[in-house]
């Protein structure tokens, strides 16, 4: 079962990488980059909800904060692209550390409410702070040089740069989930008191996972800002956190590729309905209800269990 999972995962991953390399010649690259950023944001949420059992309702705060910091560093201070991204990610991880220290003091649903409240606090701060530009956001962010080597002016260069960093983010999540650390996280998810009684400092593991997830969400936010040359209040709004969760649950919460598939479905839908904001909300709501009521495993989860049952049936037949 596990070997099967791994083999299908690797096959899917190889196919995804190949598709990623040729995609910009077939599909509008800006759309693809938006899709990838949302996929990484959702994957960072999924790392917590799927593998640690912590449902964060506030990942927009990391996504948005990193975006603002990167935008400011690149536009006002004229930093190198890579430095700007690192600054964004570091700030997001720091916000994750501070909020995480407090949020993990409560469990279950309280955790969700606390992360949501923190995100709202960050939203208010972003609204009032002078450097975020308030309602206008930070606009017309220049596309910077990266490490002094190449410029991101060219869309195709930008695309491969973003794709490389997104793949790095996913690789990191994969490594974390399949490491001894990831095993302990899953043990905490399945039975926290037992993990604690085995001598694991549960809160430290949770905090580390939270900070890591915040950093990854930050990476997604920083890249998004470089792609769209805009950092705005939408990025820190609770609706963005909700969207990340929607992507997770549509794709499949306990799977690595779920956020990618979910992102393709949800971002395409939103792009299609871009001019009808109300319909986006309504359809998001309907999708939430349908997925929760009818197929909780999500698309990738359903696919996995379909493969597993087919294999069992074959084993029984032979």
């Amino acid at each position, binding site marked *: 079962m596990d070997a099967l999972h791994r083999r299908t995962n690797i096959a899917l991953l190889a196919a995804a990488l190949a598709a990623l390399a040729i995609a910009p010649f077939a599909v509008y690259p800006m759309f693809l980059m938006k899709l990838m950023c949302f996929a990484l944001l959702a994957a960072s949420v999924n790392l917590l909800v799927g593998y640690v059992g912590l449902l964060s309702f506030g990942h927009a705060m990391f996504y948005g904060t990193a975006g603002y910091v990167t935008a400011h560093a690149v536009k006002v201070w004229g930093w190198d692209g890579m430095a700007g991204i690192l600054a964004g990610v570091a700030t997001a991880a720091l916000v994750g550390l501070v909020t995480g220290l407090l949020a993990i003091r409560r469990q279950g649903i309280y955790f969700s409410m606390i992360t949501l409240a923190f995100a709202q606090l960050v939203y208010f701060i972003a609204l009032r702070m002078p450097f975020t530009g308030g309602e206008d956001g930070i606009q017309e962010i220049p596309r910077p040089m990266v490490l002094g080597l190449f410029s991101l002016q060219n869309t195709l260069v930008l695309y491969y740069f973003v794709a490389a960093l997104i793949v790095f983010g996913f690789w990191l999540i994969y490594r974390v989930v399949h490491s001894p650390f990831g095993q302990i996280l899953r043990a905490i998810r399945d039975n926290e008191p037992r993990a604690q009684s085995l001598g694991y400092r549960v809160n430290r593991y949770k905090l580390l996972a939270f900070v890591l997830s915040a950093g990854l969400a930050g990476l997604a936010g920083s890249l998004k800002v470089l792609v769209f040359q805009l950092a705005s209040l939408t990025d820190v709004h609770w609706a963005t956190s909700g969207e990340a969760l929607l992507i997770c649950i549509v794709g499949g919460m306990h799977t690595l590729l779920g956020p990618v598939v979910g992102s393709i479905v949800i971002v395409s839908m939103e792009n299609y309905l871009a001019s009808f904001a109300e319909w986006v909300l*309504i359809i998001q709501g309907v999708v939430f209800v349908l997925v929760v009521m009818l197929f909780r495993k999500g698309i990738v989860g359903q696919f996995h269990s379909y493969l597993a049952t087919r294999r069992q049936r074959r084993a029984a037949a032979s």
Partner: protein
Amino acid sequence: MDGLLGIPPAALIGQLMVGLINGAFYALMSLGLSIIFGLLRVVNFAHGAQYMLGAFVTWGLLEYLGIGYWGAIVIAPLVVAAFGLLFERWMLRRLYTLDHVYALLLTFGVALLMEGAFRLQFGVSGQPYPNPLSGGLDVGVTFLPMYRVWVIVAALAVCMGTWFFIEKTKLGAYLRAANENAPLVRTFGINVPRMLMLTYGLGVGLAGLSGVMAAPIYQVSPLMGSNLIIVVFAVVVIGGMGSILGSIVTGFGLGAIEGLTKIFYPDGAGVVIFVVMILVLAVRPHGLFGRAY
């Protein structure tokens, strides 16, 4: 008398009054959330949307049927509660045996759906609602609008009534018993699933009632629910969902703190509740009135 720190007493009492009005809504909303959470172990994310529904039903009753505020205050909570009962019966009930995450996501989805549908129909600009109680009370230093006094008094009365119902009546005793040990209560022949449904209806009805009372004060707008619910979540985290009296005290208390912040540091008014939440989490992680679980 120069008032406190050079702030004239009229402004002080005025802002305190505004704070207590907000506090009344925090108390009613967090009370409903606590009742639902206490028995169903569900955080009702749709609570804000149901509050908005209550306000829109109030507005619609006047607009289309000519039924005024005093009719609406009876009808609208019942309509919202009926909506809640059907939702519980057809959807929420199926998720009780699963991880709590799913119920949270379901109610979040319903909240999005309702907000989207009302935005589609009515747009984001608010609808005004006439003040049903004109006039005011002259209390010497300042003039208190009658309707605001009514909201505070009515909210306190409803909160106290709910507390009395849950703590002192037989049905309330059943609810508390089912909270402790549902299977045992079922063996006594009490229909626990129906009690859960009615509890959800009661909590949602309180949200609807808040919506009715909010209609003349705030604009009736599709956005009013999601703006309020996040603050109410922070209130719930501060108070803890363990006790009913706790929700009431925390709700009014935080409203007053918010009102006073508006005088002394206007920029901080939007965030003061979140700051209090951070302090409480740091010092008393289970909330002021919460129990460790």
